[in-house]
Each structure stands twice: as C-alpha cells, then as structure tokens.
C-alpha cells in the first residue's frame, strides 16, 4: 500500500489537491473543511509519513489557527460582543467567522502540505518537463531547491568565522542591524562569484541549445492516473454546477 501513492504521477496528485482546495474554499460551513484534515492525514499515513505530516502541520498551521481563533472570538469587536473582563469580550459572530476562516486554512494547508510531502522535487520537475514547460523554469526550480541547504551550511561557516573575529551579535538594535553586512556580505560575494562558474559550466553543457532535454530518469503515467484526473475534473464540474445553480 505504501508504494501506491508514490507511484501516482505528480499531476494526478496535483489534481486531487486543487480539487480539495477549491471545494474547501467555496463550500459554505466548516464541517467538510475540517474533515479534510483527517482525510489527508490518512493519505499521508498511506504514503508512509503520517507522523511527519502531523508534526509539520501542528508546528506551522496549528499556532496560526489558534491565534486566529483567540483574536476573532475574544478581541475583534462585533455588534453582538458581550463584555467579559478588561479588554476581553465574547462574540458569537466572531466564533462563527473564526470557524469559517480557520477551517479553510486547515483544508487548503493540509492539501498543500500533503502534496509536497509525498511528491519529491525530482518527480515534480520531471512532470513539468514532460508538460513542455520552458527548461529555464524547471532549472530555476530545481537549482533553488538544491541550493538552499548548501547556502545555509555555508552561512554557518561564515557566521562562526566572523564571531571568532569578534563581531557583535548582541547589544542595541543598531549594532545588530550593522552585523547583517559582515554576515551576509561574504556569503553574497562568494555566491555571485559562483554564478559565473555555474554559467560557464551550463554553457559548456549546451544548456542554451534550442532542443528538448532528455532525461535518464523515467516516470510513467498509468491507467489509474488517467482515471483520477478524469474523476477530479468531473467532480469539479459537478461542484461548479452545484454552486452556481443553488
């Protein structure tokens, strides 16, 4: 079962996620939206990273949802706010509104998060190449994803080096603002120097040649992918018809 979601083509998963987001945003109420979280949790467990999904969701979306809830219910003033204590007031309108906002955040965020946890960047970029996106686009995406962790490592080295030279990282705000330049300066200079080398390397490997790129990596579309995509499209049409006619 673990392999089933991994074997799905990236665009099938994307169709599923888009459908979930659109339905989540435009359906009135909040029960369906909240129900999407357990559904995606189940899908994440099926893909073998249920724990990662749950933890990531709590740490990023959890706090936001909690803060929105507290502010809407107790702090924002509505005509029906009932004063409780000091600056705190309780409002049924606020409760209703916060449920509407948070449920939509929960549904969209869990769909997006699930997608990026079960789809590797390699698969996503391969699918984009197959969909005939310009190779400059896929290159930028791939190189950005690859570069961020490397640069973070390098910045640690630079920070340690500058600290050993006695840079001020504490003190008043101005001193701390000033320390941005010696921390980021060497990083940016070395990265800019590197771009020249990268450009030469890419040109010597015929990156700018006006021919399609070939790939050693392969990912096949199965029958199940076509079925999922068609079902998602039909459901979307049904949903639009239902929302417009009602």
């Amino acid at each position, binding site marked *: 079962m673990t392999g089933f979601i991994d074997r799905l083509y990236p665009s099938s998963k994307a169709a599923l996620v888009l459908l979930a987001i659109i339905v989540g945003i435009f359906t009135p109420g909040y029960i369906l939206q909240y129900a999407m979280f357990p559904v995606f949790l189940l899908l994440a467990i099926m893909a073998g990273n249920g724990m990662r999904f749950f933890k990531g969701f709590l740490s990023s979306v959890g706090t936001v949802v909690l803060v*929105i809830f507290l*502010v809407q219910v107790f702090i924002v003033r509505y005509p029906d706010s009932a004063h409780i204590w000091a600056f705190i007031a309780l409002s049924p309108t606020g409760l209703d509104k916060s449920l509407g*906002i948070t449920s939509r955040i929960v549904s969209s965020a869990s769909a997006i998060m699930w997608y990026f946890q079960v789809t590797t960047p390699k698969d996503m970029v391969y699918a984009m190449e197959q969909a005939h996106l310009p190779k400059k686009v896929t290159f930028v995406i791939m190189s950005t994803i690859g*570069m*961020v962790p490397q640069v973070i490592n390098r910045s640690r080295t630079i920070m340690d080096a500058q600290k050993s030279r006695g840079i001020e990282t504490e003190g008043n705000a101005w001193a701390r603002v000033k320390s*941005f330049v010696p921390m980021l300066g060497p990083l*940016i*200079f070395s990265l800019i120097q590197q771009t020249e080398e990268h450009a030469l390397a*890419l040109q010597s490997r015929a990156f700018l040649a006006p021919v399609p790129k070939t790939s050693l990596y392969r990912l096949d579309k199965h029958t199940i992918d076509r079925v999922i995509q068609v079902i998602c499209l039909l459901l979307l049409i049904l949903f639009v018809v239902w929302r417009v006619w009602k």
Partner: protein
Amino acid sequence: MKRGLRYDFSLLALLLIPVGVSVNVVGYQLSSILKFPIFIDQIGTLFVSMLGGPWVGLVTGLMGNVINGMLNPVAFPYALVAMTTGFVAGLLSRWRWYTNIVGAVAACFVISIAAAIVKAPVTIAVFGGVTGAGSDLLTAALLVTGTSLIKSVFSTSIFTAVASTAIDVSVSWVILRKLPDRFLIKFNYGSPYVRKVATAS
C-alpha cells in the same frame, strides 16, 4: 534599449534567483538569531531585483515563498507580497533610484507602501487579520482600543513593512555598492552602479 522578458532572464540572471532565495532564508535565520522582532527575509529579493530587474525580482519573491510554503503552507498567500516587493524594487533599479542615497531612502518608502498595500488585504482576506507573528500584538492592541479591523491590520502592515524594508534595502544596498565592478557589469541592471568610467585612450 529593448528590455523585454527575454532580455531580463539572461543565464546569469537565472542563476541569481537561487542566490536571492537562499540569501532570504539565511536573512530570516539571522534575524531570529539576532532576536529581531520583525523578520528581515527579503534581503535576497531586493539584492536580486537591483541587479536583475523587475521580472527577475518578481520570480525570486515567488520562488522564496514557494520553497517556504512546501514546509509551511501559511507562506503561500504571502508570495503576492514578496512578488510585489521584488517587482517594485526592480522597477526602481531600472529608473536608477539606487545610484544615490536620497533615491535609496525614497525607494525604501515606495517599496514598503507597495508591500503594505498588498499585505493588508491578504492578511484580512485569508487569515482574518492575524497570522501568529509577533506583530499581531500590535494589531491586537489597536483592536482593543476600538480601531476597526481593516485600519488595525493596515497600520500594522505599514509599520512592519517600513521597518523591515528599511533594513532589507540598506543591507542589500551596502553590499551592492561593495560589489566589484567586474561583477556589476555582467548583470543587465548592474551598469549604473559601476564606479570606474572607461575612458578612450
């Protein structure tokens, strides 16, 4: 000079985008190490916009938030803000605002106003006014004094945008001015910052 999309996205400009995104991430980490109440996470976007122009700046802003959004989907709607920041900063570079200190200071204000105009509606429409950041305390304080939600969020957005953009612009500007001429000249929008003028011998 013709300056279309194809001109802006030269190979070197393409290679600048990942640089900008990773500098943004490092800037974000630095601002939490240095215990700033606001996040200084657009240094890379601004730096890239200054050298690569509006469209490259826009894509850098978008990519930064997409990369963030993979781990934290809350960042996705704010891609619009980062894209505006990058685009406006790039336009100002095209109009040579950063070649002197007066223009650079004026640019801070223009960029922060543009960012706040996009940020406030996103915060209200998607999150109902608060996002769990430190600046929410300011919004909440304004709400308690009886200010309307829209006014509170907009004041907070303007305030945080001016403060963070001032730091973003000044840090990237200082670094840009220290970049050697031989690098500057290779980027499409780098020539106004070159110090030495070639003289015919």
